């Protein structure tokens, strides 16, 4: 397929979605069909592209000098784009049901669909400048989604979100400048474009810059101490929280860091330097921190948000191991966590949607009343805990074994951190499950008679995710092979 397609699939959702508020839909159904059509068509296009991958690069426009906006579909891009394109249609389907009672949903869906394009843009961007560009854009198109409910809380949250993201971008910018000025090229090249001594001012500075840039992109990946925006952003409607703040946005942060580490600075240069230890330390701390906060938190969505924080740092930990195997682990968790977390979030969303209950202590006995939802939730909980046979175990296994392979002393502690966080995960997920299925003796089920399973629009995506988790857990070989190829730069 021709390279132009790379740009087109980014463009389609952005342009079509602008139509959404303009078109006068007679029935809500029409709008649903329209939107789902956009998303599905686009996803299909993406899959076609992945099927026969255009090798070349598509250059959209040039800024000063050799700075240009280019699109390219290399292995990493394939993974991220594939992930997003699979999740989006399902999430859209879900959100139709969820948003039924929310007002001005047209605007919501406009930005929701726009985000699809922008995320694809991040995935497909062929050089660091383009990625930075879409990265900023992502912040802008997602802010209205956080703002959507327009409560005071939401406004504050969206502000925090903006400050953090733009601020992070500002620091990422520094790193970008160095790649631009001192790199052999600004394109993403496996193994990096910078190397020891490529900055005349000394490598220490370069490492410092790397750490700064890591922090910068890390803001979106919610590394500690820049994570407070994520739980706050939970005020957004659940589809947003689930798809954007568990997958698209935060994963873009992780993705950007992978690009930065493996494709711009180059791991051979970073491995074994203090910079590596610093960033690895940060990720390890965040892993523990996120879990502990999750255990402490009593608000369902916020608890999941904290869990996201820690799980993202799993990915980053994999990245900071800075070996191909580490990257494999990171990618494995990137994909696995996407499915698991979106699944658990959608369950939470279903609960909120059907019953309006937000806090965990309100969930007594729900397991009996919404068996489908909580069955799936339980499975996702097990997956997050890393029970073998489910997705979580695979990714954790690869992360940990990569850490061991690397022979890096700090990485061993990382394994420890992962396991500790696993036990904490067990705590904060199981307490919910137990509460739902085994309320205390003499619990009166009539108090929650109103609680019912939602309709197919919500259950279908969840079921598919559930199957996905199982399949991933049982037969992950093809994916892992792909990741391995990518991680060794063969794809």
């Amino acid at each position, binding site marked *: 397929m021709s390279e132009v397609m790379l740009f087109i699939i980014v463009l389609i959702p952005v342009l079509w979605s602008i139509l959404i508020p303009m078109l006068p839909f007679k029935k809500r159904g029409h709008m649903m069909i329209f939107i789902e059509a956009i998303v599905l068509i686009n996803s299909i296009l993406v899959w076609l592209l992945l099927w026969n991958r255009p090798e070349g690069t598509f250059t959209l426009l040039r800024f000063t000098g050799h700075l240009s906006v280019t699109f390219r579909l290399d292995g990493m891009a394939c993974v991220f784009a594939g992930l997003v394109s699979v999740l989006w249609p399902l999430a859209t389907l879900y959100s139709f049901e969820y948003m039924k009672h929310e007002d001005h949903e047209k605007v919501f869906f406009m930005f929701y669909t726009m985000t699809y394009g922008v995320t694809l843009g991040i995935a497909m961007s062929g050089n660091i400048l383009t990625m930075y560009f879409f990265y900023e854009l992502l912040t802008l198109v997602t802010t209205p989604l956080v703002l959507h409910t327009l409560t005071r809380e939401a406004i504050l949250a969206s502000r925090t979100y903006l400050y953090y993201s733009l601020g992070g971008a500002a620091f990422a910018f520094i790193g970008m400048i160095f790649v631009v000025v001192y790199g052999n090229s600004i394109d993403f090249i496996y193994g990096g474009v910078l190397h020891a001594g490529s900055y005349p001012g000394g490598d220490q500075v370069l490492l410092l810059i790397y750490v700064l840039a890591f922090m910068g992109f890390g803001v979106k990946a919610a590394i500690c101490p820049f994570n407070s925006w994520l739980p706050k952003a939970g005020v957004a409607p659940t589809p947003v929280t689930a798809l954007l703040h568990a997958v698209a946005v935060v994963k873009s942060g992780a993705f950007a860091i992978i690009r930065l580490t493996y494709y711009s600075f180059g791991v051979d240069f970073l491995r074994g330097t203090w910079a590596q230890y610093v960033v690895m330390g940060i990720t390890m701390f965040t892993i523990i921190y996120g879990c502990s906060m999750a255990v402490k938190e009593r608000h369902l969505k916020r608890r999941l948000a904290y869990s996201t924080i820690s799980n993202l740092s799993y990915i980053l930990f994999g990245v900071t191991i800075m070996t191909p195997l580490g990257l494999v682990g990171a990618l494995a968790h990137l994909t696995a966590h996407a499915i698991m977390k979106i699944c658990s979030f959608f369950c939470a969303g279903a609960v909120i949607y059907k019953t309006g209950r937000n806090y965990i202590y309100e969930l007594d006995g729900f397991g009996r009343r919404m068996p489908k939802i909580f069955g799936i939730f339980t499975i996702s909980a097990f997956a997050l805990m890393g029970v073998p046979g489910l997705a979580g175990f695979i990714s954790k296994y690869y992360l*940990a074994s990569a850490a*061991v392979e690397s022979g890096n002393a700090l990485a061993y502690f990382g*394994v420890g951190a992962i396991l500790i966080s*696993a036990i904490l995960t*067990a705590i904060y997920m199981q307490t919910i499950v*137990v509460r739902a299925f085994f309320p205390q003796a003499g*619990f009166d089920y009539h108090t929650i008679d109103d609680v019912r399973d939602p309709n197919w629009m919500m259950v279908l995506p969840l079921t598919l995710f559930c199957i996905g988790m199982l399949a991933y857990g049982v037969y*992950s070989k093809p994916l892992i092979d792909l990741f391995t190829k990518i991680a060794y730069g063969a794809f």
Partner: protein
Amino acid sequence: MRETIIALLPILLPVFMGTILLFLKRLKERKVILFYTGTGLLLTGVLAWNVILNAKDQQVTLFWLTEQIPVMLKPDVLGKVFLMVVTVVWICTGFFSFSYMKHEKNERRYYGFFLITFGILMGLGQSGNLVTMYAFFEFMTLAAFPLVIHNQSREAVMAGLKYLIYSFFGAYMALFGLFFLCRYADTITFTPGGTLNAELIADHGQMLLIIAGLMILGFSVKAGMFPLHAWLPAAHPVAPAPASAALSGIIVKGGVFAILRVIFYLFGADFLRGTWVQTVFLVLSLLTVFMGSMLAFGEDILKKRLAYSTVSQLSYILFGIALLEPTAVCGSLLHLMGHALIKSTLFLCAGAVICRSGFTRVSELRGIGKRMPVTIWCFTIASLGLIGIPPTSGFISKWYLATGALDSGIAVFQYAGPVILIISALLTAGYLLPVTLKGFFPGELQQEAGHDTWKKCEGDRLMLIPLVILTALSVLLGMFPNSMLNYIDGMLSGIM
């Protein structure tokens, strides 16, 4: 193919049946449920024996979890031993619960999970490599959870969570080792004598010892070894009696079983012998033996007392393993079987007592022997077994343990071990026999009490038969241990 089917059937059947049972909302008819469960148990038992008798000791790879890790079954001797114990105890407790659970609420769930757990235990026994075992271990924890918190009282749920968290904690500690083993061992398939790769571990000895220590500690959580034993006395009493019987009969044995696997089939006895890990392991186990029996001695609530006794008894087994010495290990295995039978008997008796007379404290049990003689007789015999009076199984196993300790020639422990064992045996006598004595010889003041307290309240057939069978088996094991000894002999020589 044949092997696969043989190995898989006992796992899948009960899991399948249990799941079905869970989803049969309509099914209210108690008799049907019982019949269904009963058939399930028996069929599984048959299939399990089929494995024990016919399965050859060879790997059955089901599928590849990842590149390096297959999920595989490998019914070897140790596994089969485990299967035997599980089958016997599980079926008996199952049938016992038929009458015990009569008055409990939602039985259906109970039986469903009971069956599922059965199947998972079958898997655990047959699992052929670390990951498979880990997986079944986790499943076992999860599946047994509903049994623990069956009457969802507050403390039950709390205890249940405690149990869950502790078990996961242990499991994850064990998992920690997995990653390192994948790197430093040739394979993680269980092979007698260990699989560590000599040149890989050349300069990582210390690290691997740490790992080994962690794994042992992790699995010993299930086996209720100090310092991570706290869940056990919390979880046992709150569970319904059959469940606690199953717990302390089998589930905790899962931990022991896993430790056996880790030590003899992954790291290898030689790697650990004489290292600080062994020392720590020995110290902890002995400490637990002593502590457990002391606590039991001081405890008044019958089931809690039995739970503490479980703690101490299990550490006998662990001590035997820790000695890394054939005789001792043989003793441990015997004790594993014996204790499984005995402890489940005791718990079932306690259950019968509670269910019939409603007494939960030892101090209330004056004259209980008059009222439910069979039960208390079984209790007495079992107690004797646990104390280690010939000809019960306890005697043989402890004998082997002691001799093993003496042969081992590890500086302090070769003497300290036996001494502590004997002390704790005395303590055992101290905390078990009073029940019998009070039961049969209430002494004076009981005479004056009203006649109604003298009413017979013996359990029905469904209760008594399993009790008797278990007791008989424990005695038989004590009288004719040779067949069993021969059976495990080859294995022992294999792993040392």
